[in-house]
């Protein structure tokens, strides 16, 4: 591989990998607190992209249902501005966070109060995912929507230079995605590692029983966790949507599955692990040779399968003794 190609792949991989990382954080947060994998997270990812799309574009071609719901209608001073899109992205993510809270309330809390089999939580979250994905399809149609090209205004490539006769291009979107992901990671890292809320979250993750004895409202922190999880999930949805320009009802399903590979690769429940896993899978995909690009979606799973056999606890996970 030529140096220019290598560099291009590396940059592409880092940009998409950083989105995978924040998406994976949502799974990991919930897993570390509840010990379950929330399969509805992929649907929340899709919803994030749809919320943002609605806020920016305001209508879906085949369906008048949501027409006119746009945040900044045409003609207003904000329409078409990069800032508008950023604001819509944050709002979309926040809405996705609220949906995640709703999911917790309806599908997980009743189960928790009965201390049911964690497998059932898995099925219930899948049921929720099925409901959300199909509701999207019913309400706004099955077709794939494109984010506006000029979502961030008419921006030239952030960087382009020639290296050994080949052009290396970094798109502005990629830079924005990478930057947003880094900021998000830093904020989450700060919240979890340094603040009182984070301390309480970690206490709940370690042992809910003891945490509640110490006066921590476990239910409240589970709600906070789900909101954070939904927020980063929804944000990732919009970012991936802008990177590839499209979103459809089943948009999140593939990514949601791939994210499973990400979190296990990094180490289930480990926050730095989720970040590392995201970057590794993003890079691995970027380096799948063009001739085999059809197999790109299998790259994450092949890597997952391989890593499980060599190091079942994942790259950064601690090995745990587990009774089956």
């Amino acid at each position: 591989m030529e140096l220019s190609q290598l560099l291009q792949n590396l940059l592409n991989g880092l940009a998409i990998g950083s989105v995978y990382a924040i998406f994976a954080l949502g799974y990991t947060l919930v897993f570390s607190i509840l010990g379950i994998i929330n399969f509805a997270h992929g649907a929340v990812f899709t919803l994030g992209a749809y919320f943002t799309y609605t806020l920016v574009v305001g209508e879906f071609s085949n369906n008048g249902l949501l027409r006119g719901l746009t945040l900044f209608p045409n003609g207003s001073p904000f329409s078409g501005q990069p800032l508008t899109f950023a604001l819509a992205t944050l709002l979309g993510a926040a809405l996705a966070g609220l949906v995640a809270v709703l999911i917790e309330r309806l599908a997980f809390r009743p189960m928790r109060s009965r201390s049911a089999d964690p497998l059932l939580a898995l099925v219930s979250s899948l049921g929720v995912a099925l409901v959300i994905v199909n509701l999207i399809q019913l309400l706004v149609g099955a077709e794939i929507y494109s984010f506006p090209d000029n979502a961030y205004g008419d921006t030239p490539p952030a960087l382009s230079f020639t290296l050994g006769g080949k052009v290396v291009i970094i798109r502005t979107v990629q830079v924005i995605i990478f930057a947003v992901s880094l900021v998000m990671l830093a904020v989450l890292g700060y919240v979890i590692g340094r603040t009182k809320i984070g301390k309480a979250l970690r206490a709940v993750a370690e042992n809910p029983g003891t945490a509640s004895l110490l006066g921590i409202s476990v239910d409240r922190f589970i709600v906070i966790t789900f909101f954070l999880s939904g927020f980063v999930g929804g944000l990732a949805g919009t970012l991936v949507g802008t990177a590839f320009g499209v979103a459809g009802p089943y948009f999140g399903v593939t990514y949601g599955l791939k994210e499973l590979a990400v979190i296990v690769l990094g180490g289930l429940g480990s926050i730095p692990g989720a970040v590392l896993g995201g970057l590794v899978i993003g890079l691995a995909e970027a380096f799948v040779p063009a001739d085999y690009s059809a197999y790109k979606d299998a790259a994450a799973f092949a890597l997952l399968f391989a890593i499980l056999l060599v190091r079942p606890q994942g790259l950064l996970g601690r090995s745990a003794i587990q009774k089956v």
Partner: protein
Amino acid sequence: MADFLQTYGFLIATMLQAGLLGLSLYFPLQAGQLSLASPGFYALGGYVAAIMLTNPAFAGLRDTLGSAIFPLTWLAGAVLGGLLGVVVGVPALRLRGIYLALATIAFVEILRVVALNLTITGGAVGIFGIPQAFGFQDRWPYIFLFGPLLALTLLFAWQLERSRVGRALRAIREDELAADAMGVPPTRYKVLAFVIGAVLAGLVGAMSAPFLNTWNAKQGTFDASITILAAVLIGGSRNIWGPVVGGALLGAVPEVLRFLADWRLVINGLVLVVASLYLPQGIVGALSRLSRPRPPQRPPVQGPPVSVAEVKP
């Protein structure tokens, strides 16, 4: 009777088939192994049968054997399913709990992407125009294939539970370390249970390819894994009737709800949520609890169940 079969035959055959797939997941669960690999073996079996029944390379074999080609495809599906089961099972079953589940999901996804990209599997389009088994003119006669297979499988599962192997599997499910200490080699039995499931799924796939007439990569997806798992959990995972009842019910839901048109997948999702919330023991578990006097209740344990909390690194 003929009218009844004309109307409901397809539904009944679908229910039987779904029950069989539920059982294919039940065997590894017997040993406490949550494997979601069944759709992978099912898809493989179906592809094997579909290729043998349509590919020009097998034209000579088809002409020689006539209708006897069908049992041969079942055999091939079962054997290849079993072989792949060994290949995947030996390394994968060193993993436990959610890790095994995720590894098997990865296996199914890899298989799906490979099937999407090979020429022999028809790529994204898949294989179509698969001839009906034994020249059946309708779908309902498949009841005579799936029905006896289900009966045999149930008999086998029932016998297995009462055998030494079945007791070993249960011992591993309850406490693998203790079973190991008692001289039950866990790996060998876990792989055995996994391979039995793989053989069954491969066989069902080989029977289903003519039944469904077309075969493509949609047959073995993550969604399929989940549908089967949901069937087993909703039916009840501790009794051989659970997967059958759950499979039959969930197999029937999309057909029965057809009048709801676009809403049926939403309803399907709601069924999963409600059933997992209100039938934690599964339907069969709930029924058998009703018929037995209530044992003294232990107070529920607070917090997430220990077995999963310990996975947490």
